[in-house]
């Protein structure tokens, strides 16, 4: 069984400041979601609500169909791993791993197998670990929790590229082995894009986008060709970025429907894709209004 997530009119305030405002979001069970947003956009606040680390100021947070706040049977099957983990620095790595046993589904043998695979020194103290190894420790506790909703909050940022790659592989293998809901919050967007089924973008405390990755990427396009032809086709569309080299121009448009696509093809323009990261950058640009 894997957990679905429902947020209904959720607002979260810290004193005067509003971290999340009227968020409505449904995540179906059993998919891998990417949670994207600029620093301070509300990603961590959102995840903290799902893990019942925080209580919403108003609104409802349901996990597995039930309110998650003070709901031990649900919370014990939800894992939120933050970068660096939430470990006692004076613990040995081995005993830090075994704190996972608080969860009924924790798989100790799997945790130790991963520790070995990622060359984690079990006898060392947590405080003696490098940033990269600490991230690995956090990731391992998340994977071995075998939870029904597992959330990684930028947990892999401290890892070097080969370790991140191995982490993504392991995450995918674990996901296929045992269907569950995964939410990955990250800044390394293009690196994880292929692993995701859906993407959620939060911006200034609101959900800006929730869509399938491919549908989202398919919305925009880059049109390249003679400047006058590009201008003619792009007229009236929302242009996210423009580049010009001599008589050639390329314009990135936010949305391209079939009719415009056909006109672009007729004009002999080259139609290219827009990467997930580029779309994200444009959509969360503070100077962009009406977002």
């Amino acid at each position, binding site marked *: 069984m894997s957990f679905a997530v429902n947020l209904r009119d959720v607002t979260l305030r810290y004193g005067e400041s509003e971290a999340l405002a009227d968020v409505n979001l449904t995540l179906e069970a059993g998919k891998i979601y990417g949670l994207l947003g600029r620093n301070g956009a509300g990603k961590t606040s959102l995840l903290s609500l799902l893990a019942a680390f925080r209580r919403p100021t108003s609104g409802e947070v349901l996990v597995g169909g039930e309110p998650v706040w003070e709901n031990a049977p649900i919370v014990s099957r939800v894992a939120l791993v933050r970068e660096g983990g939430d470990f006692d620095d004076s613990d040995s790595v081995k005993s830090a791993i075994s704190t996972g046993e608080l969860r009924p589904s924790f798989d100790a043998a799997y945790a130790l197998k991963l520790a070995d695979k990622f060359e984690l020194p079990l006898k060392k103290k947590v405080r003696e670990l490098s940033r990269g190894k600490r991230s690995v420790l956090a990731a391992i506790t998340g994977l071995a929790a075998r939870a029904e909703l597992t959330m990684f909050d930028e947990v892999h940022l401290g890892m070097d590229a080969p370790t991140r790659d191995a982490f993504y592989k392991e995450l995918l293998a674990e*996901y296929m082995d045992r269907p569950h809901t995964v939410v990955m919050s990250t800044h390394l967007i293009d690196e994880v894009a292929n692993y995701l089924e859906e993407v959620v973008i939060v911006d200034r405390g609101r959900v800006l986008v929730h869509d399938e990755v491919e549908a989202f990427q398919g919305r925009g396009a880059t049109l390249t060709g003679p400047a006058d032809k590009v201008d003619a086709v792009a007229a009236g569309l929302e242009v996210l970025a423009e580049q010009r080299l001599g008589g050639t121009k390329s314009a990135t448009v936010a949305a391209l429907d079939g009719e415009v696509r056909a006109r672009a093809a007729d004009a002999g323009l080259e139609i290219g894709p827009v990467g997930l990261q580029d779309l994200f950058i444009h959509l969360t640009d503070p100077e962009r209004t009406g977002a």
Partner: protein
Amino acid sequence: MFDDGTPIYRQIADQIKAEIMNGSLEPGGKVMSTNQYAAFYQINPATAQKAFRELVDEGVLYKQRGVGMFVADDARERLAADFRERFFETVLAPLVREARQAGIPLTDIIDYLRTQEGALQ
């Protein structure tokens, strides 16, 4: 391998089609599972599934419940027709359009193709 901007599921579907056409996948032969594809290409399994769904809809693959995916017996014939259609759409249609833009009469093109065909024989 996934970088030319076409959706990944379509690239996977196209690759399977190409393997059927060049004979590395035989009619009746078993295709790798969704999870095997996902693990091999490091992609979300739903993406691989989407490719398979498309191929099943087109009658190129068929599903045997609990056993796996197989290449349809007439897959190659189906694809041959498909390739022909696509050839007209993606090769000839732009050719006609560009020729018109450049003011090249269609008869010139036909003459050219005839000499090419003559050279091939």
